């Protein structure tokens, strides 16, 4: 880009005043890449530009005028779940998520407006009941005046962490997230169905919290080698695992469903309290349907406790093998849709 071009773009698309202070920190990134095998977004999308180090390079390119800010860049930079697996494991100490928050703010100032992993409220469906507001630990949702007599739910696009707890809390189904990162209910439903279709011997579906457990659970694909009687689905927070997902798994042939989350006092989002309450209700519901409540299991694990997780899963699978397949499934086909 020529000098005139650089001046034009800087003027036109914002001056990145927040990001410029990070130039020194961005230089510290040695690009070792230790961050990216821990990134759930990279694991889903698999492009280098989805990695934390890739995003840092894009930001560096923008503030040094080597690359024009664009919708594609904004799309990438607005995708982050703030699990901090990257910054916690960065030996160079680059505060990746802080930099990403400033990138969001600067890009919004520059006129870019994208969804990324941020939640969206459908005003036609929203009754402004306000249930979602206290659910968000980051105060990213608020009720704001909308004209003279009305009000609406407003999302703070810089503060939203994309955990999706508000999505599962909204009684009207008005809050959604963009598809493409394997976090929406339809995407997770599809994933469960595919897993059960691919492996007829599958006994259990295990939902694992991204924050505490994902880093220890990854494995390159090994379809012919590692045949386990369970499959792991990474959920953003255990509070995000909706009951209909679990029923969906049982309905489609799983013998049981396990949810692995952070211990209550360690959850970043306070989502696990909600999980615990939901699972009590779900177990009662299973009893009504003549299904053994033990087919649903909830267990807590701190970061790095993958050995404990493995044992817990193995114990659960043993229990399921004793119980055998579900004899009679009386859940309505409507549930879980």
């Amino acid at each position: 880009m020529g000098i005139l071009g650089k001046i034009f773009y800087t003027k036109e698309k914002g001056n990145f005043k927040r990001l410029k202070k990070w130039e020194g920190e961005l230089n510290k990134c040695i690009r070792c890449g230790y961050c990216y095998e821990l990134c759930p977004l990279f694991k889903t999308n698999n492009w280098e530009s989805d990695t934390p180090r890739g995003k840092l390079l894009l930001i560096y390119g923008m503030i040094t005028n080597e690359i024009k800010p664009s919708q594609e860049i904004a799309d990438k930079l607005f995708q982050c779940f703030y699990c901090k697996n990257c910054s916690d494991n960065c030996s160079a100490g680059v505060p990746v998520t802080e930099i990403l928050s400033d990138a969001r703010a600067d890009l919004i100032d520059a006129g870019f407006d994208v969804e990324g992993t941020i939640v969206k409220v459908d005003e036609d469906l929203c009754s402004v009941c306000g249930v979602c507001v206290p659910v968000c630990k980051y105060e990213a949702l608020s009720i704001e005046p909308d004209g003279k007599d009305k009000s609406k739910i407003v999302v703070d696009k810089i503060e939203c962490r994309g955990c999706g707890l508000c999505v599962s809390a909204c009684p009207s189904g008005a809050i959604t997230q963009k598809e493409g990162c394997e976090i929406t209910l339809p995407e997770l439903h599809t994933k469960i169905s595919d897993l059960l279709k691919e492996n007829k011997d599958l006994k259990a579906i295990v939902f694992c919290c991204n924050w505490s457990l994902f880093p220890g659970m990854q494995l390159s694909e090994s379809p012919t080698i590692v045949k386990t009687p369970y499959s792991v689905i990474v959920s953003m927070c255990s509070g995000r695992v909706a009951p209909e997902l679990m029923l969906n798994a049982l309905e489609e042939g799983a013998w049981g469903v396990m949810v692995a989350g952070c211990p209550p006092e360690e959850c970043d989002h306070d989502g696990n309290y909600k999980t615990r309450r939901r699972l009590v209700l779900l177990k009662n519901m299973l009893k009504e349907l003549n299904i053994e409540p033990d087919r649903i299991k909830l267990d807590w694990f701190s970061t790095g406790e993958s050995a404990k997780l493995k044992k817990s899963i193995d114990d659960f699978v043993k229990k399921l093998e004793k119980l055998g397949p579900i004899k009679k499934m009386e859940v309505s086909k409507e549930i879980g849709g």
Partner: protein
Amino acid sequence: MKIDIEKLKKIVGEKNFSDNPADLYVYGADASVHHSLASAIVRPNNIEEVQKIVRYANKNKIPIVPRGAGSGTSGHTVPIDGGIILDMKRMNRILEIKPEDMLVKVEPGVVDDDLNKALKPLGLFYPPAPASSRIATVGGEIAANASGVRSVKYGATRDYVLGLKVVLANGKLVNLGSNTRVHSAGYQLERLIVGSEGTLGIVVEATMGIVPIPKYRCLAVANFDNLEDAGNAISEIISSGSQPSMLELMDKIGIIAVNKAMDLNLPEVGAIIMFEADGNVKSAVDFEIKKMKEICEKHNGTGIEMSYDVAERTRLFSGRKKLFASLSKYKEGIICTDLADDMGVPNSKIAVTAQKIHEIAERNNVIMAVYGHCGSGVIHTKIMLDPKKKSQWKDAEKVIEELYDFVHSVGGVTSAEHGIGLSKAPPWKKARKDILPVMKSIKKALDPNNIMNPHKLMDAPDDWVGATNLRYKVG
């Protein structure tokens, strides 16, 4: 260079093709100081797709740069001539594990640590283990002949390559090597691909040897007041016939950096040596550790700690594992660049080379840490400088020239395990003028249109600073 986008999309599917500027910018860098833009990125999923892409590129004389984790330190995957980047990470299937034959068959995108996670329940492991094993792919390790902390006992990637399926520049698939530990039938072509940095063909499947996990591992740490004593202790451990399964050095700069980055509270002495022995008989492991401990003590090593416990070994080793990435924390305003990073020297020259590195760095206004798998002769350094100052890049150029002249004068090699790429090409070409024509002939025979990762290794520019844009903003 005009690329037929629709053709490439048809081969790999729309979702696995990109030519948007954000992707091109990000794929223009690896872990080196270099940056350059390609015209397109494709992510093939199987051998047939790789063949189709290569045939298209060869017919149209478009450069192809295969890429694994992008963790190379010398610019191997930086597309200096533009063209198509082949992101091989989708081909990440472990195809077969055969404990009865002690081998695995994998696709090139399998991550080293993931392979070891799959092998562990069977009591087996794949030993090359570079420090970047968390992300490094088997394909990339083959391309660079990577090795790591266990190379002193278990060797490098080349020692585990039994057979390779390779797509050549004309798109043909060839099966090189065998499924057996030995074969004697002409040229060892699978070995030719090892260390070829993507310039001869694209590895699409690898048959690799594996070994049993030893029953006992004991790791020890010794402190030294100065680098000379530590270097001499390492040389004597090797020449005495000891069999360490790991023998690592960290100098004071490295120690300070990891203490800052990780709050490890290591003693900030002149140097630390980490030595490990492994085996199935505990008394034999004890014997090796005792012998190495005595040699360390003879060379004024103190505060020797040792442990068989996994958690304790992990704690003792954690600083070394993350040293490379921690160096940017050493001093404010100074960052760690991947330059002059992996020379190999004869066993008797460890101490003198380590000291020389510090001397050259000091004289040229940069900081250099000295560490590495010194038991196998690998000395890692990094040049730490202020990347914004043009004068510092001039300093780096001088350091590199002086340092490699010294390394070559004592019988050492430019690169022990990271490869040549772009930034190490000038000193390597200067030292190995004799083999360059041979390498060029081989390249021409296998890749007459010069499409496979062109202008790397023997064909790389003589000025590494000007070879590409630097990924730092200078001035």
